[in-house]
């Protein structure tokens, strides 16, 4: 029995504006409760919303980045429901005329299991619309009451809705990660998942191949990629078990509990989907001129996809390396900066060397210490200096790793670390020849064996020579000299 998994995502990204979507109250995170809840945020009678230009600009940026149609005219609508963290009794959102229309996002999927190879997939984005965030409910010790903090109420959100194009947890996570990287790349959202700046709702259903879509359940508010994967895996199994056990999946909104790894249905709210949308009479249609759109387009940085293609075509990197280096804009900046320094200051054009070190040593060390590239203690110019010495053969690869570790923990520049630790590679042919001569003289029996055909002994001589040079002999040169002298 095989089942097909169908997944679509709705992602709420908090836009990185200074102020709320409909008022001039600050959106800074972490303020004392309700100190950023102005008259509009708390919905005092008589207040009117005034749309934030910065929020619209960010929505346009996103639309352009995913190749979507930007609506020349879009409309704000009221979504009506009652909840204490929504003091107006309705959320201002967009319904049938969203600001961003259909677009696409191409993702690199790394299968989670087996030996399956990474592959590329294009996910269709249905739409993206502007709306306001709600406040927060605190269920602390308030004499059986609930505390309401409306600082977050009115924070601009861009809700990005995908088509149900993903068919595994791996694809859903890859899409969410690509989207997360993109919104940070174009600077419209800080992407801080812990603080709720990037929240994912995942719609999951299962079906037999060729059958119509199954009934979906929506997992709400996932704020980590790990939880997303766990939640989908659990939910898919639950739906399959339910159907195979003769049951039926009921449409529901569900929550994922990270402690138990299980999903559970939220209290099903009667009429929950009867939001009675209608155009907000307080807001006129939003008009976006061609001119404004082009102004915003001019502010977009080179997008990850374009950069990836350039790395492959112009720099000769592999598709894998290119995708690793464009995982975030900061990562790509670090790579570009390292490469440029190496080129301009040392006249060494070697993108592959930079890529290898950044994807290898740098990333591994960052992961070990749970840092991101912006927190890397070694700056791009420092790394480029080290790589210049590697490229010129001044130090061996293992020597370079030692310099790297020292630089990481103690700081300093490559040159002084190499001198201080005496890591300079011996590339002086006279010195290497002297070492080899000495070894040949003191190991006459082995030399005789080698010469009578025991080729395997070559490694033995290399070992001795390396030891004699304290690991500093230039390996390529040493090999040459050894081969020549041993041949007799």
């Amino acid at each position, binding site marked *: 029995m095989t089942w097909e998994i169908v997944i679509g995502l709705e992602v709420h990204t908090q836009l990185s504006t200074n102020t709320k979507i409909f008022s001039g109250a600050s959106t800074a995170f972490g303020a004392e*409760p309700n100190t950023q809840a102005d008259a509009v945020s708390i919905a005092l009678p008589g207040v009117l919303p005034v749309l934030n230009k910065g929020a619209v600009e960010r929505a346009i940026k996103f639309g352009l980045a995913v190749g979507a149609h930007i609506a020349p005219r879009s409309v704000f609508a009221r979504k009506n429901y009652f909840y204490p963290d929504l003091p107006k009794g309705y959320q201002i959102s967009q319904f049938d005329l969203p600001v961003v229309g259909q677009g696409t996002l191409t993702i690199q999927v790394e299968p989670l299991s087996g030996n399956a190879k990474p592959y590329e997939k294009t996910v269709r984005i249905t739409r993206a619309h502007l709306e306001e965030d709600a406040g927060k409910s605190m269920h602390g010790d308030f004499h059986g009451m609930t505390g309401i903090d409306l600082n977050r109420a009115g924070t601009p959100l861009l809700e990005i809705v995908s088509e149900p194009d993903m068919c595994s947890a791996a694809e859903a996570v890859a899409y969410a990660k690509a989207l997360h990287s993109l919104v940070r790349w174009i600077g419209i959202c800080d992407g801080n998942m812990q603080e709720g700046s990037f929240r994912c709702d995942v719609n999951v259903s299962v079906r037999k191949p060729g059958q119509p879509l199954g009934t979906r359940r929506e997992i709400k508010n996932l704020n980590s990629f790990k939880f997303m994967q766990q939640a989908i895996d659990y939910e898919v199994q639950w739906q399959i078990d339910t159907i195979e056990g003769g049951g039926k999946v009921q449409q529901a909104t569900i929550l994922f509990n990270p402690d138990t790894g299980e999903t559970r249905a939220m209290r099903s709210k009667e009429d929950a989907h009867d939001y009675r949308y209608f155009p907000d009479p307080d807001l006129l249609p939003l008009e976006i001129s061609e001119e404004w759109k082009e102004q915003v387009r001019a502010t977009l940085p080179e997008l990850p996809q374009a950069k990836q293609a350039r790395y492959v075509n112009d720099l000769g990197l592999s598709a894998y390396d290119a995708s690793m280096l464009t995982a975030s804009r900061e990562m790509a900046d670090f790579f570009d900066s390292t490469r440029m320094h190496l080129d301009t200051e040392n006249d060494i054009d070697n993108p592959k060397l930079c890529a290898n070190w950044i994807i290898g040593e740098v990333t591994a060390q960052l992961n070990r210490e749970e840092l991101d590239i912006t927190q890397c203690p070694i700056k791009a110019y420092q790394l480029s200096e080290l790589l210049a010495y590697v490229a010129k053969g001044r130090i061996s690869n293992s020597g370079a790793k030692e310099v790297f570790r020292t630089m990481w923990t103690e700081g300093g520049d490559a040159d002084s670390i190499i001198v201080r630790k005496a890591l300079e590679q011996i590339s002086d042919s006279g010195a290497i020849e002297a070492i080899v001569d000495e070894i040949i003289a003191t190991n006459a029996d082995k030399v005789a064996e080698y010469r009578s055909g025991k080729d395997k002994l070559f490694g033995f001589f290399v070992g001795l020579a390396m030891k004699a040079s304290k690991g500093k002999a230039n390996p390529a040169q040493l090999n040459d000299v050894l081969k020549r002298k041993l041949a007799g």
Partner: protein
Amino acid sequence: MSLTTADVRKVARLARLAMNDAEIETARAQLSGIFDLIAEMQAVDTGGIAPMSHAQDVAQRLREDKVTETNQREAFQAIAPQVEAGLYLVPQVIE
């Protein structure tokens, strides 16, 4: 178009309005009257006329993304029924 009392009850519940039978019937008649009015307007042939949202041809005015509001929590909370630790307190909400 004529609404049923069931329609009105549903809308009343969604709007959290407590209404007795007599009120439901009054509201039903009034709302049906509004729908009749809408039906009359919809009968007008508007083919080829773009919808408009304002009598004058104006679009949404935009605000620069600058903080203009200051903290007025104390003033706002002075008229709230119950507050604690800077929070507005409301009857418990259970997910």
